[in-house]
């Protein structure tokens, strides 16, 4: 619980290793290890490395995963984004924003009874592709959508 990100990173386990362990199911959700892996994933930059950190490299695009959001956001400080997975046994969902300083915005674990449908609001520094990553039956899937961020108000 008390793992800080710095500890997670210097702990010897590279981002990729944690990711691989997560992917293989070697880390049980809720453990300190899982926590550290997740924290490491928040520190990565760009989509490819973040996918690796999540153990989700090679996630396949799936029509069963959808991103619910407007195509254009009036303001980047608050962009409403929802992720829904229709894939059976979905137990994890993550939302990534390509052009943010760190791509991973949030991840969700569904335990007993949790439905794979979440809505949240994220900051986007600029127009960007947004990725939803889903884990179902141990396999990773994804969906992608571009969200344009505009300048609202009087521009001053």
């Amino acid at each position, binding site marked *: 619980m008390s793992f800080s990100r710095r500890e997670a990173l210097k702990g010897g386990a590279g981002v990729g290793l944690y990711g691989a362990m997560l992917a293989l199911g070697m880390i049980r959700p809720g453990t300190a290890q899982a926590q550290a892996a997740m924290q490491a994933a928040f520190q990565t930059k760009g989509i490819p490395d973040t996918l690796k950190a999540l153990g989700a490299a090679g996630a396949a695009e799936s029509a069963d995963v959808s991103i619910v959001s407007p195509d*254009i956001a009036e303001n980047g400080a608050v962009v409403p984004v929802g992720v829904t997975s229709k894939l059976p046994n979905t137990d994890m969902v993550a939302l990534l924003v390509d052009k943010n300083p760190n791509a991973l915005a949030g991840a969700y674990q569904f335990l007993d009874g949790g439905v794979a449908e979440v809505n949240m609001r994220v900051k986007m520094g600029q127009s960007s592709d947004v990725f939803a990553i889903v884990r179902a039956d141990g396999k990773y899937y994804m969906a992608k959508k571009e969200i*344009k961020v*505009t*300048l*609202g108000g*009087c*521009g*001053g």
Partner: protein
Amino acid sequence: MKARFSKALSMARRNPNVSRLSDSAPSVVLLSVARLRTIGRAFRPLLVSSAFLGLLGACAWMPHEPTKEEIAQLMKQSFAERGGAKLDRLEQSALQSICSDYTGKEVPKALKEQLEQAALASVRYPADGKYLGDFKNGERIAQSGVGLQFSDAPGTVAGGNCYACHQISKQELAYGNIGPTLYNYGKLRGDSEPILKYTWARIYNAHAFNACNSMPRFGAAGILTEAQIKDVMALLLDPKSPVNQ
């Protein structure tokens, strides 16, 4: 009944205001005082009825219709100087005063023409005869909405905020519609001398062509420098500008 009454009242008050204001703010007057007095004389019958209505307004049961001086006083009392935004910004020029009165109404033809002539006379064309600068800089100026606000850090370079009101290049989706679209501005008009001069004047002081329109006087009010106006000109008129693709 009441509405009609107060409308008559404000119409009647309009004309004395014009000449009064021209006296109180000589540095910013665009029209000559003499010219305005001429206009004022043409409305003398209204002056008389104004005095009469003013008497009625003094009765206790009638709400007092504020005079221009009272509004000016009220504004000064209600604002504070901050940064570059001093209280003199609340002293209306003749143009501002007249245009305030005629918002949403037709400005009388003679008055409108006088305002337009005065505005055109204020335009200073580039000394070196070169009208077009760098369209890439022009795009930055058109995007930037900062400058001249009390919240701006000292030394902030003002933008033109053109996209606030105009569509310009196709790439920018967040554009306003207060002014007409400027997409393909140069492609449609070419870059002949009259077009260059007209466009320059329009940016410099748009009241030259349509007195009391909403566009800031980017040159005459010192919002943009001559070099900045050249860059905005290039954005509109340079054949290589994205505006003309």
